[in-house]
Every structure is written in structure tokens, then in C-alpha cells.
């Protein structure tokens, strides 16, 4: 199982790990929302083909 592969190369000291992860998750989610989900016509039209291509609900 993956769970047994405890890292000897930790990417970040523990104090920074959780804030970095939270920032990455929030930033990624917001970006995804604007490109693939926002109902704004302009955003929709600009990203139209990609919304279809990544099979996000589009129309």
C-alpha cells in the first residue's frame, strides 16, 4: 500500500506543509472554478472548448 512508503525526503518542514497544502488546494480550486465552472458569459466563451474537452458540465 502507498501508506507504508513514508518519505525520507520530506518536501517541507512540517510547519509549512499544511499552510502550503491549503493554499495550493484553494488556489487550484478557484482557478478551476473560473476556467471551468463560472457562469460568466465571457469566461464561458473563452474557455468553451476546454470545458467540453475536460468534460466539465458546460451548457
Amino acid at each position, binding site marked *: *500500500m*502507498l*501508506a507504508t*512508503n*513514508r*518519505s*525520507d*525526503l*520530506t*518536501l*517541507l*518542514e512540517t510547519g*509549512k*506543509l*499544511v*499552510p*502550503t*497544502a*491549503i*493554499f*495550493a*488546494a484553494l*488556489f*487550484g*480550486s478557484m*482557478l*478551476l472554478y*473560473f*476556467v*471551468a*465552472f463560472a*457562469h460568466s*458569459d*465571457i469566461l*464561458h*466563451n*473563452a*474557455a*468553451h*472548448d*476546454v*470545458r*467540453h*474537452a*475536460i*468534460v*466539465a*458540465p*458546460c*451548457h
Partner: protein
Amino acid sequence: MLIRVLLAAIFAGVIAGAFASAAQSYRVIPLILQAETYETGGHSHGFEGHSHGDAGHAHGSEGAEVGEEAEAWGPGDGFERTFYSVISNLLVGVAFSMILTAGILIARQKISFKSGLVWGVCGFVVFVLAPNLGLPPELPGMVAGDLQARQWWWLATVICTAGGLWLFAFKSGIGWMVAGLVLIVAPHIYGAPQPDTIESAVPANLAAEFATATMVASALFWLVLGGSLGWLLARQAQQQSETEQA
């Protein structure tokens, strides 16, 4: 250190997004353009003001959709449209890369090119396979249920599937396995929002080709994203440990 990890994530996202643009240009985008020639009549997709930017799109239906309200801006066909699609792909790549990085950090796993590929496969299952079981890939002109309801179902399915896979990967014991299974199956038992009718102007073979094309392109995107993210993060971790030893 925070910045260097995030930069690795952004770089991996850009690589995967650029790759996605190339992969989509083979079948996915041509099929979307072909489907648009069948797209007629207004969209009755449950959200107001959806106008599709026909001014620039030239849907081949002589502006049949033009009507009710002023047209919103849309990229013109050809270079401009491709340009915005590439930008969108890069942004989607960075977005998914950030989300995957968050998972990798929280899981505290040893990361490498190979384990990155595993993360990529999980991303594909979570963000593509699971939502698509309920909401098949749509071409322009195909009918579908209410947009907002589908978006909520998509989000719920992604969260449940990710949670279920997480339990499978990082918890042991039959109880957690059952909980993971319930999470993964629940959205599909609840059911995705469906359209009232399945009649569509888009030929069935186009829709079938599109489903396969998007699955292949998405799978490749997630493998490239996972692999490059794993490689870059591993490189980053190695550099860090070398700096610490020095």
C-alpha cells in the same frame, strides 16, 4: 520552500496543459467544431443569458441562436479561439496540479516520477472517470440536465470519490474500506441530473467518438501531469536535502 514547491506545481501544470492542447487538437477539438454545425435553436439549459458568443463562433447555423439579449464577447474562430483554448488548458493544468500537490503534501508520501504517475491515475479517476459515469462527455448541441444541478453533482462526486480513494489508500481495516466504497458509490446511487429528453441534433457516432477521444486525451493529460509533478517535486525534495546536508 513554500514558493519552490508551488513553482514546481505551476511548472508541471503548464507542461500538462500544453500537452493537453496538443492532445485535444487531434480529435477532441475537431469533433467539437463538427458538432457545432448541428447545433441549432436556443440553449434551454437552465441558466439565463447563455449566448455562446455566436458572433465570433460562426456556428454554421447562420446565427440561428442569435436573439434575446446582447451577445457576450467570444473569441473569433481560428487563431483567437485556439489561443484562448490553449490559455484555458494551461490554467486548468495549473489548477489540477495545485490540487494534486495539496493531496501529495497532506499525504506526506515519498514522491517520485513513478508515484506521481499513481497520483495522476487517481486524479483521472476522481476528476474524469467518476463524474463521467453520471454525466457523459457533452458535445455542443447535446441535451443535458440543468447546468447548475450538474455542476453541484460533479463537485459532490469529485469530493466523494477523492475521499473514498483516500480511505482505500491510507486507512486499513474493513470498516474504512466499506466507508470508502460507500463514498465512491453514493453519488451514482443518488444519480446525476438527467435531461427530460435524450433527443439530440448531434449524430450518435459523433457523440461516441467524442466520449472516447476525451477519455483518451484526459487520461494522457493526467499521466503527464502526475509524472511531471512527481518528477519536479522529487527533484525539489532532493535539492532541499542536499542543501540541508551541505
